[in-house]
Structure formats: C-alpha cells, structure tokens
C-alpha cells in the first residue's frame, strides 16, 4: 500500500479554481449587501491566476495520482476554454445582476465550482473521475439556471434542467457500471485494451457505451435528448445561458472525445453508426426548429443544438485530426456564443424582468448603437460560418477532417444545414440594421467597463481565430496528439 505520487504543479490550475471558489464563498456572508461585487472581482482575479497556471503546464503531458489525473495538452486546451468562458461570464454578470436587483455573491463561487468540475472532466480518462466532474458542473448549473428566483421562467428552467439532468445521470452511471462489469476497469485505455482484438465484443459493452452516449447526449443537447435545452436556455439568466452553451458543452464534448475517439468508437461495433444518426438528427432538428423562434435566447438554444450536431461529426470520423478540429470548433463556438450573450445580456438588463429577449427588441438597434450592432452581427456571422470569422474556421477544419476520411454524405448534409442556419442568424442582423421600430425603441443601457473589455476581447478573438487559425489549430492538434 502506498500513497500515489502527487504532482501539485500539474494540479495547480484546477486547484486554484477550487480554492478561489472556497475562499470567495466564505467571504460572501461577511460582505454587506452592497459590496457583493467584491466577490466577482476576486473570482476573475483567481481565474486569471489559474489561466496563468494553465499556460505554465502546456507541453508537460504528465499524469499524476497513478494516472487518474491527466495533465496533457488536451486538458490544458480545454481548461483554457473553461476559464476564459467563466471570466467572460463574470464580466457580463456584474452589471447584469445589479440591474436585475439580484446581486447575491454565491453566484460567482457557483460559476467557479462549475468551472472546476469541467476542468476535472477534461483532465481524466477515468470514467469515475469524469462522472464526478460532470456532477460538480451539473449541480452548480442547475442552481445557476434558477438563480433569478423571482422569475417564474428561471425556476422552470432550473426544474426542467435538474429533472432531465438527473435522469441523464442515471444513464451515465448505468453505462459506466456495465462497461466496468465487462472490462473490470474505469480507465478508457484499459477498457479499449480489454475490448480490442476480441472476435465478438460483449453485448453489454455495446449497451454500456450506448448508455454513456445517451448520458453525454443529454449534456450536449443532442437530438433526441435535447428537450430540456430550449426551456433551460430561455429561462436561465442571460449570462448563464451564454456560459451553459460555451463551457458545459465544451466539457461534455471533451469527455466524449476522450472516451469515444481514442479508439472506443472503432473498437465497439455499431457505435459509429449511432453517432452518425445522432449527428445528422441533431443538426437538422436544431436548425429547422430554430427557424421558427422569436425569442433570441430560444433561437440560440436551438442553434446550440445544431452546433452540437456539427461537432458530433468529429466523433463519427474518430481520427486525431477530427478531434483537434472539434477542439478548435468548440473554442470558436464558445467565444462567439459568449460574445453574442454579452450583447443579449446587456439588452436584457434594460428591463427588470425578461421582456427584452424577443428578437423584435433588436429592431433598429444597430442604428442607435452601431458598435453593439456590429459586434452582434460579427457573432451571428461567426455562428453561421462566414469567413473571416472563427466560426468559419471551425467548420472548415472539421468538415475537411471528415471529407479526408470519405464522409461525403455527412458533410453534404452538414453544409446544407449551415445554409439553412444562415437564414435565422441573418434575421437578427436584418432586424438590427434594416428595420425601424414601430413605437418607442427599446432603451439599451450604456456598456459598462467590464462588459466593454469582455466584448472587445470576444470580438478580437473571433476575428483572430478567423484570420489566423494556424496557431490555434496547431495547439489544438498538439493537444490531442499528447493524449495518453
């Protein structure tokens, strides 16, 4: 019996996030009602230290705790996405919560806990640890979705998200139990070793993998497990909706890429076919229903479902190139969506309740506030996949990876879907630039300093990845090559 070797430097990014969460949480009761914003500032400072720690761990590709905790570039890449997503969310939230008169400091530690959970998910190939990370993330998000407790819709979002999320957890645990029962290990590499080379793979390994797919399918809102997403996205406070679509989605995909694309997918028969069907259904259903939405948060919820469908292509293809393409796609999508939700949160915070989330609210916005309009236009173009934005690059590398493996039908469907999606993204742009409001135009608050910084960062990042993707792609590529 020996205590496993501990490499604290490797653990430092996630530890810093966790410790920041604990400290800020302890601080909340000692701050008066008026000074809760201090928690927000301490939180983003802690996150920036964690981001620095991540940058120090790049290239190490080491493991600790007997292989339970991985510090490869894959986990550093995703940890970076989660931390940046959390920081941008905090910057968006400061003014939003004040205007909604919902300034409770616990909000920020919960975001940090969710971030910690995501980092755990991306930093292990052990199903047990991945599951626990998933739970930390989910539990925090259930509460955050219902944080606007006086809003009926927010409570509804939290309850629906919680009930269906808990249901999905059952599938995940069931799947893990079956896989463990057949292979005798929680470790993905061990599972593949146990299953690889056998003439006929055990039926329960297939059932277990399918159950895992269902569990994670819920988390990324893949069709037919997407029912919770529109209500949860619509009801949650706007900055949290942005966070939900960026961080947790990336975390669930990081775990899926770890589990399914390092060989699981090709080892277990039928799994690739299942992924193909789910991917096509997800992008098609998401895009078609998004066409009919009049609430911008709801529309972006369906858009987020559609994007999950595109990213699932990487799991169908299952090559290293596809995985790095998915990583780049998730980075691009996270930054774009966070940016879009900054504008949405700002517009939304103009009213005390949630009456400013309809697309009609944006009528003529660009004429009054050209910079806001241009920023939102850029994000919409990026979501639709126009060059020279990050969204275009994400789609380009992902589709290229699929075509190089001969998945022509899949890519034709994906491209047709992208074309459909242009319609509803551009509808927002048309509203902002080319229509006049009927009556009194909506009063959009001035952009506060922190939101300004975050918005500038998001715009710059979306353009930078769009114009110069090579560096990011190399990093994303490295990150996967370093896996295991």
């Amino acid at each position, binding site marked *: *019996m*020996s*205590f*496993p070797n501990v490499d604290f430097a490797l653990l430092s990014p996630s530890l810093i996030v*966790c410790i920041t969460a*604990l400290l800020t*949480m302890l601080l909340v009761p000692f701050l008066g009602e008026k000074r809760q914003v201090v928690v927000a500032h301490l939180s983003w400072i802690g996150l920036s230290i964690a981001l620095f720690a991540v940058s120090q761990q790049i290239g190490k590709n080491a493991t600790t*705790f*007997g292989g*339970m*905790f991985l510090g490869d570039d894959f986990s550093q890449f995703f940890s970076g996405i989660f931390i940046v997503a959390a920081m941008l969310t905090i910057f968006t939230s400061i003014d939003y919560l004040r205007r909604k008169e919902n300034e*409770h400091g*616990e909000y920020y*530690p*919960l975001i940090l*806990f969710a971030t*910690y*959970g995501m980092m*755990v998910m991306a930093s*292990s190939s*052990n199903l*047990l*640890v991945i599951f*626990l*990370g998933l*739970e*930390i993330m989910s*539990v*925090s998000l*259930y*509460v955050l979705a*219902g*944080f606007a*407790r*006086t809003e009926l819709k927010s409570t509804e979002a*939290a309850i629906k998200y919680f009930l269906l999320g808990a249901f999905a957890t059952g599938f995940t645990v069931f799947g893990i139990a079956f896989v463990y*029962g*057949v*292979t*005798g290990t929680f470790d993905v590499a061990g599972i593949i070793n*146990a299953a690889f080379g056998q003439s*006929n793979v*055990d*039926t*329960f*390994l*297939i*059932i277990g993998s399918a159950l895992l797919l269902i569990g994670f399918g819920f988390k990324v809102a893949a069709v037919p497990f997407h029912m919770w997403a529109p209500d949860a996205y619509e009801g949650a406070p706007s900055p949290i909706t942005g966070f939900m679509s960026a961080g947790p989605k990336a975390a669930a995909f990081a775990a899926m890429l770890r589990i399914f694309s390092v060989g699981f997918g090709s080892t277990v028969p039928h799994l690739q076919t299942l992924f193909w069907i789910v991917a096509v259904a997800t992008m098609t259903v998401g895009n078609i229903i998004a066409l009919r939405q009049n609430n911008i948060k709801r529309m972006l919820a369906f858009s987020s479902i559609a994007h999950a469908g595109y990213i699932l292509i990487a799991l169908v293809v299952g090559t290293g190139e596809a995985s790095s393409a998915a990583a780049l796609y998730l980075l691009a999508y996270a930054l774009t969506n966070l940016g879009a939700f900054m504008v949405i949160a700002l517009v939304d915070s103009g009213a005390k309740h949630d009456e400013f989330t309809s697309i009609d609210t944006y009528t003529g916005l660009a004429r009054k506030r050209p910079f806001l309009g241009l920023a939102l236009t850029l994000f919409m173009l990026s979501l639709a996949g126009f060059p020279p934005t990050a969204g275009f690059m994400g789609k380009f590398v992902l589709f290229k990876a699929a075509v190089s493996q001969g998945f022509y039908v899949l890519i034709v469907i994906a491209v047709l879907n992208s074309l459909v999606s242009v319609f509803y993204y551009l509808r927002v742009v048309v509203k902002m630039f080319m229509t006049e409001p009927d009556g009194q135009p909506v009063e959009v608050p001035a952009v506060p300093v922190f939101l300004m910084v975050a918005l500038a960062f998001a715009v710059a990042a979306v353009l930078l990845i769009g114009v110069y993707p090579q560096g990011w792609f190399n990093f994303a590529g490295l990150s996967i090559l370093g896996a295991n």
Partner: protein
Amino acid sequence: MDSAIAPYLFYLFSFVVVVSGLLVVTLRDIFHCALFLILCLFSVAGIYVLLGADFIAAVQVLLYVGAIAVLMIFAIMLTAKVSGIGIKQQNEQVPIAIITTVAFVAIALYGLGKTIWNIKTDVAIPDNTTMAIGKLLMTTYVVPFEIVSVVLLAALIGAIVIARRN
C-alpha cells in the same frame, strides 16, 4: 452466508425490489409511495449483503433508508394536503415508456447470455470489507474521494441558495 439458500434469497430480494419499485411509481398516495421506496431500498441492501458487501449494505440502510427516506416522509408530513389525495402518476406517454422498458429488458436479457463478465475468481472476499474500502479510498481512489467532497459542497451551497429568503 449459507450458499445453498443464497440464490433463493437473491431472487426473493430482487422480486421485492422490482415489485416495490413499480408500486413507488404507480400508487396514487404519495405517502404509500414513500413507504414502498423504503422497502425497495431495504431489499437492495439485502442484495448487497448476499454479495458480501457488508459495508455498502450498512451505508445503504443508514443513508437511504435512515436519512433520505425518513426525510421524504417528514417532507410529506410537513407539507399541507399532499398526503391522502390521489396523485395521478401516469400520462399519455405510458405506452411509449412501456415499449422502451420492454425493449431494454429484452436487449439486456439477450446480452446477459452473451456477455463474459470480468469476474475475478482468484480473489477471496474479505470477511470485513470496511478496512479494504478505507484503504482503497485513501490510495487508489483518493482523487475521486476528494472530488466527491466538492460535489457535496457545491450541492450544499446550491441548496442554500435555492432555499434562502429574498
């Protein structure tokens, strides 16, 4: 455990688990549902005992029966007008649910015969599993063990946030 009667006990416990589980989701009085849930959880503890997992069985009784189920009954007692009235537990999705469940059971039964489970026959089951579990939690599984505490903490804060007064 006398190995001759162990299989019969297993089938007895399993039967009780399934029947009481079904009653939990079909009975109309929420109080009766809670009582059958206790029975269900107790029978699961019985299966753990049969498997030689005494520690897990004790935890099952202590936590699920002792804490969670009792908490539920308290919640029912303290909530006005929730016990005694019939609550409809079915909706129009029952047929789909039945088809899905039957399909899953069929696939599982089919797979049961075709699967070689990874059973370690060369390891003797210890008389007392508590110490072995404790050692594993502090060595091999120390990462999950520590992370669980964060799960609980996050859940605790979440519960307080949701329950606080405005």
